[in-house]
């Protein structure tokens, strides 16, 4: 693990709350606590997986990492610079170093721009390259993501999902970033294509020494690509560990349930597996339960869980859990 020693991104108590206004005077009466106090670090060159159910705040967290949302609270160091408090100009300077890949390859590409201009947009914004140089750069980026150079003049709708996702990746790579937030980059793709994209992401990471925050709800894919995995539930990290530890010895009951819910493509195994089926739905982040966020669905919850909020504590080396019961 020597290659992953330097910390690139460090989140300290990051909170993103979306205000809820009500009443005749639209006074703020509460907030959606989409992300409610994240603490973690991402080391240079590693891939941190971020998993959790829909609506638990993964995308919000990812976007907050790039300060696409203003933080309600907390500090976000990128190579020691707190980007949460940067002014717009300085922020713009630093933007090229951190990029994002989106979930829906259809929606994240402007349907009325050619592939060439989509990929060139970051270059337009941040470099003074000549048209010729830009074209060259775009072509080399297309090469890098394994697409035909002749596609520059085509439109997104003329491509398959996987190809579109490659275009999105090429755009993210255009400015040679250090850090990429991948917000469910394969969720919208077909099984047969997912592998292509994941492989591509890994290739690029190796070639360019990138750091990924890989958001996904596909636990098996995260296991494949990530070095460490964070499990989120209702705006909070409930468990953060090296992937081996996490998959082998999940400590948090939620992680356990999550893992057991993943179907295994093997009828024999599947028939014998014990599933922990959680009851009910994720509570609304606008109105989280008292105590532990997971207490409403937790199969092993005790009274303490309903009163006291568990801290994220380091259980074993590198394995952090937020549960009173974990040991």
């Amino acid at each position, binding site marked *: 693990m020597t290659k992953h020693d330097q910390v690139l991104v460090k989140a300290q108590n990051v909170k993103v709350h979306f205000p809820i206004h009500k009443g005749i005077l639209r006074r703020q009466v509460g907030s959606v606590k989409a992300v409610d106090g994240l603490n973690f670090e991402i080391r240079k060159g590693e891939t941190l997986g971020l998993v959790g159910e829909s609506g638990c705040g993964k995308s919000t967290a990812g976007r907050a990492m790039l300060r696409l949302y203003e933080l309600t609270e907390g500090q976000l160091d990128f190579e020691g610079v707190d980007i949460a408090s940067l002014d717009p100009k300085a922020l713009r300077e630093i933007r090229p170093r951190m990029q994002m890949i989106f979930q829906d390859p259809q929606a994240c590409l402007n349907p009325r721009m050619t592939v060439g201009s989509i990929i060139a947009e970051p270059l337009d914004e941040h470099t003074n390259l000549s048209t010729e140089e830009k074209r060259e750069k775009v072509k080399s980026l297309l090469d890098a993501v394994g697409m035909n150079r002749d596609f520059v003049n085509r439109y997104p709708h003329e491509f398959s999902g996987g190809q579109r996702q490659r275009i999105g990746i090429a755009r993210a790579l255009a400015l040679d970033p250090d850090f990429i937030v991948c917000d469910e980059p394969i969720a919208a793709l077909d*099984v047969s294509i997912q592998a292509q994209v994941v492989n591509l992401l890994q290739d690029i990471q190796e070639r360019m020494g990138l750091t990924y925050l890989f958001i996904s709800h596909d636990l098996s*894919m995260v296991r494949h690509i990530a070095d460490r995995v964070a499990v989120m539930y209702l705006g909070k990290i409930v468990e953060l560990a090296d992937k081996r530890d996490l998959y082998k010895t999940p400590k948090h009951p939620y992680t356990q349930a999550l893992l057991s819910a993943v179907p295994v493509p093997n009828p024999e195994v599947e028939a014998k597996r014990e599933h922990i089926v*959680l009851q009910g739905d994720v509570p609304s982040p606008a109105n989280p339960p008292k105590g532990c966020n997971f207490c409403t669905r937790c199969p092993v919850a005790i009274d303490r869980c309903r009163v006291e909020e568990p801290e994220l504590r380091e259980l074993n080396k590198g394995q952090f859990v937020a549960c009173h019961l974990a040991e």
Partner: protein
Amino acid sequence: MLGGRAIKPVLDVTDLRTVFHTQDGTVHAVNGISFYLEEGELLSVVGESGSGKSVTMMSLLKLLPIPPAEIVAGTVEFDGNDLLKLEPEALRQVRGGDIGFIFQDPMTSLNPVFKVGFQIMEPLKEHLGLSEKEARKRAVELLELVGIPSASDRLDDYPHQFSGGMRQRVMIAIALACDPKILIADEPTTALDVTIQAQIIELVKKLRQKLGMAIVWITHDLGVAAGISDRIMVMYAGFVVEHAKVKDLYRRPLHPYTRALLATLPTDDEEGEDRLKSISGLPPALHEYPNSCPFAPRCEHAFDRCQKENPLLMEMGDGHQVACWWDVEKGAPR
């Protein structure tokens, strides 16, 4: 077709072909598909997006927009009738009455402006002729059946007040409303979270035991299919390329496509290889009826026969059928 069919199937589809007439020409979405469904069994249909899974199932009940769709050939035998030749009125009785349908996207498949209760009660009143009160009672039962707490209160809620998982349960409740003989579930869990997906799968398993209906389960998740099905049918480009009992298929996949699909999945012991196996290339555009193997361009085993002749399903024993000229087990053409 399949050897050793003991009981008469509830549903028997032969040589179903469906095309779409579009501005850019005809799309051959379903190209001669035959399958059957026996009482109480669960048939999974897997295949990547666009392989014709949904169109096949919707063709059965003519739920496709006609035009542009056209069912050009085939018979769908159900209850002694050919559904494709049924009068619209009679077909309506089958829809929702004898065959229930669950669709992929619970977010959009419920009508946003009607109360959930109304939407559940609609088929009850239509097919079973229940009165408002009876229908309401039954609707409560159904919601309880699919595990929605305080069901009677929630009847008067609108779909948007439900979470995705709950909406999908409502969809299931609607499909089950009239005690159908067959339930067709078109990717019912794809849009849901794993934990919710587990809930739904659990629910379906339970219902199957309780109600004993035959189920067609469309999915592209081989894991899900492995857990619940009796038989699996793999589709590619509007064809059935492989068909087998579930254990058979996972133990001994015979079609290169099935094998490739299984190989793309990340394995438990990821220590093994660093990269996933992937299927290169794209599924074919279905602009003409193929007279070569549609998988040939992406197939590592393709040889000249594959370019010339489209393989038909071949029986490999014990109901295991495959449509391929290459024998993967022997590593030689058949």
